[in-house]
């Protein structure tokens, strides 16, 4: 009897493990293997990180902290997108390059925009490092995942429903992405937990696309509604394209989005910071984009920032 129970128990366990791994495929295992291989790779340091990125007033400045983390200042308003300062994301994907900014130098902050709830965009520990005077914007589907950080406001945002605070107007815009936070919770969201944002202040408009696949109708509609000065658009991960194309734009699609929204300037984001795809090298997306810029003569409409680099676009 004991042996029979033991056999049944072992079969139940095996069936359970099989069930739990049913969501896995060769892509997941390849990604995991490559992530593990990256763990021993040292993180590339940032030299001469800007210790004073904030000004009393500026027309428009953009500092790429890395990945989708961008410090934007328009006039006297300071906005930070998808803040991630941690060494790893999701415990397995190691940072390739150190953050381009010490979060301690962000002494004032008006808005923190969260595009979606994946680890590389919504990092709990990083949010704890920021001034609580800011307002936190989270897609409404991500609210059940949001701890109490103590920020002055928490806005649960929905596409095309703008929120205005002291003249700073934040409009969530639809993008195309996927999933919950942990994979198995993808079906738990009654509303999409992902969004993009258009930030408007003093006649300047910045599009932060967060993480998105190419969806022509969405972006053309954004172009119809706003006059975008700067578009922050992801260009990676790229491979394997069969899977990534639905949820991540490649450099060619990023250029198309910039065209669709009528952006005066495209600044690529979401590359060279974390290992997230199966590209042959970290700079793969950058090299593809550079090639396209040269072929199409778009040097005046695309600015590839280095991690930690700040650009003043309007004084």
């Amino acid at each position: 009897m004991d042996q029979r129970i033991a056999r049944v128990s072992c079969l139940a366990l095996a069936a359970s493990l099989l069930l739990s791994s049913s969501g896995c495929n060769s892509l997941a295992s390849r990604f995991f293997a490559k992530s593990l291989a990256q763990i021993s790779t040292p993180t590339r340091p940032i030299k001469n990180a800007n210790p004073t990125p904030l000004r009393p007033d500026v027309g428009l400045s953009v500092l790429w902290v890395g990945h989708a983390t961008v410090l934007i200042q328009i006039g006297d308003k300071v906005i930070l997108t998808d803040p991630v300062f941690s060494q790893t994301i999701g415990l397995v994907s190691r940072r390739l390059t150190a953050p381009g900014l010490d979060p301690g130098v962000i002494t004032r902050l008006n808005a923190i925009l969260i595009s979606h709830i994946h680890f590389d965009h919504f990092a709990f520990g990083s949010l704890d490092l920021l001034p609580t005077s800011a307002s936190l914007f989270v897609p409404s589907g991500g609210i059940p995942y949001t701890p109490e950080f103590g920020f002055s406001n928490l806005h649960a945002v929905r596409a095309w429903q703008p929120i205005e605070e002291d003249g700073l107007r934040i409009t969530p815009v639809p993008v195309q992405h996927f999933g919950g936070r942990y994979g198995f919770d993808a079906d738990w969201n009654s509303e999409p937990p992902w969004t993009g944002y258009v930030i408007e202040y003093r006649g300047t408009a910045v599009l932060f696309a967060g993480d998105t696949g190419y969806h022509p109708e969405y972006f053309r509609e954004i172009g119809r509604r706003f006059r975008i000065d700067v578009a922050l658009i992801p260009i990676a991960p790229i491979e394997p394209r069969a899977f990534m194309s639905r949820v991540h734009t490649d450099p060619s699609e990023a250029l198309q989005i910039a065209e669709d929204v009528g952006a005066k300037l495209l600044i690529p984001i979401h590359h060279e910071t974390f290992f997230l795809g199966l590209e042959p090298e970290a700079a793969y997306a950058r090299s593809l984009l550079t090639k396209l810029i040269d072929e199409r003569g778009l040097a005046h409409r695309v600015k590839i920032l280095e991690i930690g680099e700040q650009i003043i676009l309007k004084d």
Partner: protein
Amino acid sequence: MASQNAPHSSCGAFSFSDRNPYFFLHPFKARRSHTPEMKTIHLKSLLLVILTVVCTTVLRAQPTEPPGKLSSWLPYQALPSMMVISHPGDIPFAFEWEVTPLLYSFGMTRKVSPWHSMFVLPPARFTGSIELKVTGQLSTRKTGRSYFGSSAQLIGHIPLIERGEYLGLNVGVAKYAFAGSSPWFKVIGVSTLFGFVEFNFKHSSDPSMWLGSIELRFF
């Protein structure tokens, strides 16, 4: 229900023949015997309280549930946790299945209800919570007269790193019912990997009695 004088089982599972297992229910009273009827009343009362709490919570909490929740919840709930049970001369291994009738979360934004029942997203637990959970065990050996056991546990989850997503502390109490006994255990452990994995150690006031478990927690 086993009486105080229940004989040792042949496989040497739990034996409380030398003490009153219900002593732990009345720590401030002297040891005294309880009849099997009284033990049944205790367990029925406990089940009644749990049932009332579940019904109240389900009716009040989370009025709008997303579609597709149940189909993703069920398979993950079917995944068993693993447990070893001490007793002299043998360490039986058991599978354990857990559900959360009630959880009060104190680490999440106030925009969502702090009360959760059955369907619990990991952050609601690991960012700081008090959880009432009910478990069932299937042992690979007979413990007492049966292969089956159950427990009710009250566990506090305290976040340590990344709001508990990387590391959290678990403390609490558990009341197990197996081997014809229902002892109380003190629980201490850690949770890691986004709250998916918990390593818990449970110890009764009897030094020879402990449980060690690796618990898989998804919802």
